[in-house]
């Protein structure tokens, strides 16, 4: 019953749009800012070539991914609490923030979210907002969202750059990311901003070493399943 009551209450909080909704006495606010990096350098689209762990030289034309099912683990009772049920399209070019979610006020040990859109939320999608079909992140042919998009060029030879495409899709490739928040102190009625470093170089490292001669057009299927777990390690909180 408690759980039902809770989902009932939170549903109104989110329905009424967290950005504009008035904050309730037992709530506080959380923003997530995603900072895209190549190792220690801020990501620069198109102009800069980077080197991955496989020693391939590559550039990035577009970098986008879905973040959803954001939860926090309560420090008090160790239960996972839903912080947002929306999906957010994070895009190097257009939007790198999830702004001012109204969340239950308490302390949290951990942050949990998913990269990608799971089957339930795909089948039940209303195609509104970030889940719109017209963002280029929904695929008609397999009726799935592209969870993670990384496109650009790699130097196939010293003089010839070839395009590469990671459009990771497939429900089995949605990745759960868990990060410690035990150092973050939440205060009542005060916005807390988490800065998340997203290191694209780590995507190429492990568990699957990604070299462009093998992996240059990855969507679903075997290759996608091999590389998708790499997404787990690219996020860290750097507050």
């Amino acid at each position: 019953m408690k759980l039902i009551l809770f989902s009932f209450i939170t549903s109104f909080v989110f329905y009424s749009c967290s950005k504009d909704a008035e904050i309730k006495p037992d709530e506080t606010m959380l923003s997530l800012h995603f900072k895209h990096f190549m190792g220690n350098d801020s990501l620069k689209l198109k102009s800069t070539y980077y080197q991955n762990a496989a020693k391939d030289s590559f550039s990035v034309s577009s970098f986008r991914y879905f973040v959803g099912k954001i939860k926090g683990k309560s420090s008090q009772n160790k239960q996972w609490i839903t912080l947002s049920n929306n999906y957010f399209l994070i895009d190097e070019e257009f939007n790198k923030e999830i702004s001012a979610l109204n969340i239950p006020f308490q302390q949290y040990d951990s942050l949990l979210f998913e990269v990608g859109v799971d089957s339930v939320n795909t089948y039940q999608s209303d195609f509104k907002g970030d889940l719109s079909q017209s963002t280029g992140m929904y695929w008609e042919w397999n009726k799935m969202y592209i969870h993670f998009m990384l496109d650009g060029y790699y130097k196939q030879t010293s003089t010839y750059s070839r395009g590469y495409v990671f459009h990771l899709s497939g429900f089995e490739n949605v990745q759960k990311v868990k990060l410690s928040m035990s150092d973050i102190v939440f205060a009542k009625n005060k916005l807390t901003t988490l800065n998340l470093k997203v290191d694209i170089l780590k995507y190429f490292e492990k568990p699957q070493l990604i070299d462009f001669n093998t992996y240059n057009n990855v969507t679903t299927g075997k290759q996608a399943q091999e590389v998708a777990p790499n997404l787990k390690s690219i996020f860290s909180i750097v507050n």
Partner: protein
Amino acid sequence: MIKYLLFPFLLFSCNTQVKDNLAPEIGKKYTYNTPSYFGDYLLPTNNIATEEGIELGRKLFYEPLLSADNSISCASCHIQSAAFSDPGKFSDGVNGKLGTRNSMSLANLLWQKKFFWDGRASSLEQQALMPIQHPDEMNQTLAQTVSKLQSSVVYSSLFKNAFGSEVITAENIAKAIAQFERTLISSNSKFDQFLRGEIQLSASEERGRQLFFTHPIAESGLRGGNCGDCHGGNLVGNGSFHNNGLDSIFSDLGVENQSKSIYDRGVFKAPSLRNIGFTAPYMHDGRFTTLEEVLNHYNGHLKQSQTLDPLMFVSNELGAKTLKLTENEKKDIIQFLNTLNDTIFVTNPKFSKP
């Protein structure tokens, strides 16, 4: 159980403006009638559509007074029978001048965020005033335009009905034209009937549909035309911008003209392909006259350059540099493309010259 009942509400997105919830200060509010499978759209909060505004906008769209020698209206280059594009490669401006790009089709503009082949306008209101002032198009200042319209008794009353004042402004000209253009919704093609579950596509059309949207994976033998990566969704266009391999040396720099970035060289908008059978010739410079030529371009004639889009390297064959579809596959895709033609749209009397 209850959790799932609540689910639709939980998904309600916060980034989306609740559509059409504002009342106009004057006039009868107009509600755009759009199919749900096109998804939601944003409307400007400072230009709320009214019956009166749309009526005015339609008249302005067909009004040659907008051009310097009173010879050309918006509709001269956006011809309804061509899904509001121009069957000519380039369009005639005043004084016999010719443009340098093929006139774009106007349909389902509610879902577009950037306009022109190079995306230089970020709203329809902004877009509408540009061809009026362009020396190779209508070649008329906004002051001249306002003054010519102001001297017409008909327009004084139409502007009063739409905007509450007989005093005509360039801003209101743009607003009215934009309101009319947003009514140009094309949703009665065979593909729409298919999306609504009213009909089935023929076997060839259905094969073409699958190929059109599928991103191929050569390793696993999954075949596709990869068209949907740029012309995706039910609108058959993402509004994204790409260099699709037309040239190695560029006479038209495309988006680079605006951005001054060499990484935008030869980059143009990937338009929606709705009504594609009515909108020939194709590409920003109208270089292809048939869909066969277009498919052949992607299939084997891509030109290399520094900005050739990464998606252009995707192939049905390992290591190949172009799509490598078979002749039958190309035929099937063209069969599907022709299901995007909406004859009701191109003959709808509500969109024709008033």
